[in-house]
């Protein structure tokens, strides 16, 4: 099978694990050619060097659509880009897979020989909310991204491409929003297996307090740091006996410490307003490598996850796998994944700081019993392996090639 893979975004973190998990377990007769450009391609050079599967990389520059905010004579390009994928990429490939299809504009005639993974549509679903949290230029970019991703998803869902999602909740959302659909998206949950294989790395130099709660997430507005900060301040003031500092990891969290951009500045100011001290009440570690992240997670008194929406949500599952108590948002997708693995969870409404505060108090006061329950659940935790995930993708690729060949009228 000649498998073209197209991605011009190259998201770090969970996306890298996902790609390695799928690539590493593909059979050798699947010839992978990956098309990308710019910084994304540089990321893929790194990833290809880590992969056990041969990946041919092709630098294929393309046209990008962007938006700009204009005020008077001044104009500023805003961040999000839409990638106008040329049809020639499909030449010589049996199938083209978009492992992160958002923001890729696919030529209509190429849909039958396409498999597309939608991890989430958060930018569309929470678009108005997220745009409202941005400064002018960011808002312009966000609305552009929201409008374009919505349109691209609408086209994709109405096409002959096969769509794969990570969670039933995402499948149901797509069906409800863009349906009725002639074919529902396949659900292929991601694996947390990698967490068992990661070797803990020393973290003594991080100077972590004895007890802390951990929130691993970038600082995007849907991650809802503000509610967590308000809850933390409430606990600090009203239940000092239960209080534990909060550790933040993840991309762009460093901007909260420095306050260098709009979101970072806002969250930093909020911490100041709440009288939470960076370095003492809120410890910001930024991006950690896998080994150090595992060590930090293992030492945490609990993982708190107040996100408003996720496509899958790795961290609570990873915590569950390691026997770390979990307190998290009572949202469909997290219910789906955590209940599938019977991870004991303190649920809260993410928009209600009092509920988050109550969960933090329980993590602070019932640590022993929560940890025992979490350890017991971890012992029974059985997840899909990446080999199984990859096999499901391989089957989806084969099914789609079969469908495309019938569509082309060339026979299977």
């Amino acid at each position, binding site marked *: 099978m000649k498998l073209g893979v197209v991605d011009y975004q190259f998201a770090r973190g969970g996306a890298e694990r996902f790609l390695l998990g799928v690539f590493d377990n593909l059979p050798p007769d699947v010839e992978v050619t990956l098309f990308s450009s710019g910084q994304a391609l540089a990321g893929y050079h790194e990833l290809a060097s880590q992969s056990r599967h041969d990946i041919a990389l092709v630098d294929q*520059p*393309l*046209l*990008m*659509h*962007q*938006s*700009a*905010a*204009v*005020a*008077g004579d001044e*104009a500023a*390009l805003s961040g999000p*880009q*839409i990638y*106008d994928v040329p049809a020639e990429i499909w030449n010589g490939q049996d199938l083209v897979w978009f492992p992160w299809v958002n923001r890729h*504009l696919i030529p*209509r005639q190429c849909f039958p020989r396409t498999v597309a993974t939608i991890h989430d549509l958060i930018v569309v679903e929470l678009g*108005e909310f997220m745009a409202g949290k941005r400064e*002018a230029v960011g*808002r*312009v970019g966000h*609305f*552009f991204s*929201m*409008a*374009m991703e*919505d*349109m691209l998803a609408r*086209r994709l869902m109405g096409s002959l491409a096969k769509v794969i999602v990570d969670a039933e909740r995402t499948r149901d959302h797509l069906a409800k929003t863009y349906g009725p659909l002639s074919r529902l998206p396949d659900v292929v949950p991601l694996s947390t297996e990698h967490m068992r294989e990661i070797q803990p790395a020393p973290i003594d130099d991080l100077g972590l307090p004895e007890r802390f709660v951990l929130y691993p997430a970038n600082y995007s507005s849907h991650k809802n740091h503000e509610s967590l900060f308000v809850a933390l301040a409430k606990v600090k003031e009203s239940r000092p006996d239960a209080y534990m500092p909060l550790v933040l990891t993840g991309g762009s969290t460093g901007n909260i410490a420095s306050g260098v951009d709009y979101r970072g500045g806002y969250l930093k100011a909020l911490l100041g307003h709440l009288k939470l001290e960076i370095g003492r009440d809120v410890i910001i570690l930024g991006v950690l490598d896998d080994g150090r992240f595992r060590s930090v997670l293992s030492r945490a008194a609990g993982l708190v996850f107040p996100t408003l929406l996720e496509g899958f949500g790795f961290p609570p599952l990873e915590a569950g796998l390691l026997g770390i108590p979990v307190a998290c948002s009572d949202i469909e997708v997290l219910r789906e994944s955590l209940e599938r693995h019977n991870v004991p969870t303190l649920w809260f409404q993410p928009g209600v700081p009092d509920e988050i505060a109550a969960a933090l108090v329980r993590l602070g006061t019932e640590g022993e019993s929560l940890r025992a329950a979490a350890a017991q659940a971890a012992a029974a935790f059985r997840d899909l392996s990446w080999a199984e995930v990859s096999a499901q993708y391989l089957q989806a690729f084969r099914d789609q090639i079969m469908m495309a060949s019938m569509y082309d009228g060339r026979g299977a």
Partner: protein
Amino acid sequence: MTDGVPERMATLLHVVDYSGSDPQTARLVEEVLARLPVDEFAVGIVSSGAELERARALAGRLARPVEVIDVPALVHRFAVALGEDAQFAGSPTHEVLADTFIDPGVVWFPQLQFHLPAHRGLAKIVAGIPDVSLIEMAEFLAEKGDAVESAAATGLAAMADMALRRVAASPARLVAPSGRVADHLAKTYGCSPAQVILPTPSLLDLPAEPVPGLPPHYIIYAGGIGPLGNHESLLMAQARLKGEGKPFPLVLAGEGTSRIAGGTGHRGAYLKGLIDHLGLVLGTDVHILDDVTPGALKTAFSQSSGVILPALAEDAALLAAGQAAELGVPLAASDMAGPRDYFSRRGIAPLWFRPGAADEIAAVLGALRAASPKPPARLPDPGWDEVAQSYLTLFREQAILAASQSGVQ
């Protein structure tokens, strides 16, 4: 207070237009504002930049007080980037910020397209949707354009669709100019727009202006050269007839047609190339008039053997065809819901053809040339009084709704 009875405060109506409406919509604004009761509605026009001048000119023409208000909007542009180079693409979208909606009781967007209103103001909005073809035909338009036009078509469709979804799902009132557009809005966005049909400006009472150089026995198409004008199918049909030994001159009028003669711009060059490829000769088979005055258009229609409308959307070309029908000129038109809706309403029975079928167009062209003209006659159409009354009702209803939503009634 007057004799113990409290005086009613006039409702403040703001007309928001940052993009500059098409001529038909601009006329609508003028005709409606001229007829709104002065004691019931105080009127302001909100705009900024180059459009302010147009607003001031309109205010000057009206015999009522109209405040022209300069409120800068946040302008969203599309851009195309390849490597380090970026270029703007397409028309801007104006984000109309929440502050714009604080003072007025009703906010009228005569043409919602190219505007993104803030959520805060939705309950006050009456929004006109003159057409939806940019959204419906987005992929077609993207494929017909060069790289920059393609990006513009895609971006505009996405933004217009998002704005429509936002407004359609709100207490705002949408207004469609035809049953066809109203049906599409209802089906796609789940809303119930009001339908207010606008009159077609008649050429009957205008003096005809001379148009030199018109060929004998020609067919005329008056429509812009955008891809929705579908000139290619018409030219293919013409070439087919020429190949069969039945040549006839085709006159093209309308926005941008001069670009065909010059072969300028992506579309102009494409159509010029197509004319050459089909063995047609500019100046012999195809005559270009460009965008002419209404008086000249009257002459061009009146002297023609027939008018053809192969357009894929109901735009200015449809109105031009309606004007020609009033002059009694035989007419052939695309068999689509928009033209069907329009012509049946006006009691016009054109020859129909499928716009993508050059064979059918060729057959119709033959029949059109053989058809006899009718005497000029005014055809059924609503008047501006009727239109203004409909809008008056909409503004009153929306003012009540908005007041009830804000709890200040």
